[in-house]
């Protein structure tokens, strides 16, 4: 057979880097061509020798290399806050934060400590009134209210009192 495989084809074949078609063609050629088979066997033997040589020279990582690596790593490892700007470092920022918190506590008005104003919905009184009426005796319910007897001035006073009752704490009004 005059058309021999190229060295590149033999090397790629040994490294299983040929596509399927070429790989099959090379394999077929190697069964027929003694010259190429001898060359391929030599390449394979060279690969085996390279691996054997590498295995023979296999060595452990020296302990001083390990120690050197750890030493460098530890010397380079710094707390993350060391790279922060000066005013953000804990030694400075913690007292600053405490002082700021105390200043806010003493200087701000104590509005947040005062009790919140209780606002009662007018419907509360309507419901209370309805329940009083429901609990009262039948005869009381029949007593007519003579609105005509209430003067204009009294009417205004009652209205004002009712309005105040709506907007203020009912517990205060009970006192």
């Amino acid at each position, binding site marked *: 057979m005059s058309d021999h495989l190229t*060295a*590149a084809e033999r*090397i*790629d074949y040994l*490294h299983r*880097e040929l596509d399927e078609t070429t790989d099959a063609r090379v394999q077929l050629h190697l069964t027929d061509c003694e010259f190429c088979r001898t060359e391929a066997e*030599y*390449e394979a033997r*060279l*690969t085996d*020798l*390279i*691996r*054997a*040589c*590498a*295995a*023979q*020279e*296999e*060595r*452990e*990582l*020296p302990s*001083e*290399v*390990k120690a*050197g*690596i750890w030493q*460098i*790593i530890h010397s*380079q490892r710094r707390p993350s806050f060391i790279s922060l700007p000066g005013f953000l470092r804990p030694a400075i920022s913690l007292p600053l934060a405490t002082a700021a918190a105390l200043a806010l506590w003493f200087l701000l008005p104590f509005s947040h400590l005062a009790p919140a104003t209780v606002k009662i919905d007018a419907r509360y009184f309507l419901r209370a009134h309805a329940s009083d009426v429901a609990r009262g005796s039948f005869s009381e319910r029949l007593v007519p209210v003579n609105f005509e007897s209430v003067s204009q001035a009294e009417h205004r006073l009652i209205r004002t009192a009712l309005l105040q009752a709506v907007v203020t704490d009912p517990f205060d009004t009970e006192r």
Partner: protein
Amino acid sequence: MSQYGKAVYNFAYRLTTNENDARDLTQDAFVRVFRAWRSFTPGTSFLSWVYRIVTNLHRDELRRRKGRFQEEIPEDNAFQEYGGQRPLAIDPIEEFVEHHLGEALSKALARLSSDQRQVIVLADVEEYSYQEIADLIGCSIGTVRSRLHRARLLLRKLYLDERQPTK
């Protein structure tokens, strides 16, 4: 480090062909691994990532030195060459032949250029695919292919040259 230290050190040794440079390279690589830990992509091969760091550092160091790594000082005691452990061999003649073949090949490998040795170590010792080697050393698959072909042809020639005196 205990898991990958030996593999990385041996890889560095095969690239540099001497112990002192292999130690420096391994040390620099692991320090770089520690610093660049966050850039490692989970799910990918950690060893390949470390090998990439080693090859990059090796290349940088070669550029810095503008030449080869220092030559290894010959050991007086031949046993130390294998870390004090002789490879087991039943037949002394076979051992002698294997040792000399290995020695000739080691010398031939050392005479290759750094790039050629690198691709041979990755393809034949570490058994990476061309694509993996291309990713690892940052070049095209065609470059890997042609570099490996040239390296192997040259290695074959150098190996035969080294074996000539023993014939």
